[in-house]
């Protein structure tokens, strides 16, 4: 049963708050038990141009939650209402997850974006929400975290943070079998986001 459900349990995602941007990174492997269910999955999604999420957990739950957040944001945007900040979305999501903690959405989400300042939040399926300067989640997080601890400094530039995030996920690809294929890195700043893809092997 377990192997039949596509669950992105094995994953590595990374988030870094840089000087004037937020960087998110995630690998591209979807695993179902020992089986690689998909080699080219996209785990970074955008709620707006300037708010991104990295996703890990049940794909079904993630898609559902992603749609809720996107709807919430765009309804409020069109209606001229707040809230439209990263913190507001994170708080809303933390409430949603907390309310469902006895039959939870199995997700681990990084919410990163730029409103007045670069913000990064880590949320888990019980509704825990923490604001972070740098963070790694998923099965490869111990490996990735080591790289981040070594390379992170306050006031890191956006491009340096992109390289660091990619390096962290690539390290996890090497040492965690549930993490693989390559990395999508994104940098979110006041003008929007730019993405970069990094692959250790060309042949996929």
């Amino acid at each position: 049963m377990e192997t039949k459900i596509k669950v992105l349990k094995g994953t590595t995602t990374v988030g870094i708050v840089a000087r004037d941007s937020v960087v998110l990174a995630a690998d591209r492997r979807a695993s179902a038990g020992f089986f690689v269910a998909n080699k080219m999955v996209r785990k970074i999604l955008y709620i707006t141009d300037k708010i991104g999420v990295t996703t890990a957990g049940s794909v079904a739950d993630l898609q559902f939650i992603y749609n809720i957040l996107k709807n919430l944001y765009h309804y409020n945007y069109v209606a001229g209402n707040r809230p439209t900040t990263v913190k507001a979305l994170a708080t809303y999501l933390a409430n949603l997850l907390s309310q469902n903690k006895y039959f939870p959405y199995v997700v681990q989400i990084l919410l990163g974006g730029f409103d007045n300042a670069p913000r990064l939040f880590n949320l888990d399926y019980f509704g825990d929400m923490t604001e972070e300067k740098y963070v790694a989640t998923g099965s490869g997080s111990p490996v990735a975290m080591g790289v981040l601890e070594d390379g992170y400094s306050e006031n890191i530039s956006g491009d340096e943070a992109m390289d660091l995030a990619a390096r962290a996920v690539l390290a996890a690809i090497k040492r965690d079998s549930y993490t693989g294929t390559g990395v999508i890195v994104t940098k979110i700043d006041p003008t929007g986001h730019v993405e970069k893809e990094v692959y250790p092997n060309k042949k996929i």
Partner: protein
Amino acid sequence: MAFGPAAMGYDRAITIFSPDGDLYQVDYAFQAVKKGWTTLGVKTKKAVVIAGEKKRSMLVDIDSVEKIFLIDDHVGCSFAGLASDGRILIDYARNSSLQHRLVYDEPISIDYLTKLVADVKQAYTQHGGVRPFGVSLIIGGVDKGVPKLFMTEPSGQYMPYLAVAIGENYTTATEYLQKNYKDDLDVEDTIALAINALRSSRQGGEKIGPSEVEIGYAAADTGIFRKLSLEERAQILQKLG
């Protein structure tokens, strides 16, 4: 009671339009507002002020009667019309503000809060078995450093205002505000303008005592809505002469 062809019962069920396109019960609710104590709001670049008149009545403890209501740290409110109806809407506004903080960890915007309250009022002009709210609310507050002022009507209509007056002497107060409104006043002068407008609306230029007025304001720089104490009101009134 006459049930001639003129009435036809159009004023009985509020969900029914008259042939002229009026909802009579809603129109009557406006009359209830016009009977209420005069209340007004003024917004300048530096502050938003809400002032309301309190009428003496023999054995009522006037200093314990509330006329300005705190909704949240950054929002205050007053109303004219049926006080009991007003209380319900104020309670709703308070709960909505709290819920917004719980769900989003952010103070509610004044626009959105006003819309929520006005939506309730609108619902009571369209559903059967209910009557409209006989109150107009003045909602004022500071939203990300910018003063905001709104007034909602029994119909559910709401508008942003620079200055607005409701209640029995709203016409004279509005005239005064039209003549004397400026948007570059500081906080104290905005309060003074509100008090003077309230005074001008009193019949025969009757003096106003500190117990007969209540004032709430939010300055743009602090973003906090607070009410003036009896002593502060006495001081300001003395200064204004």
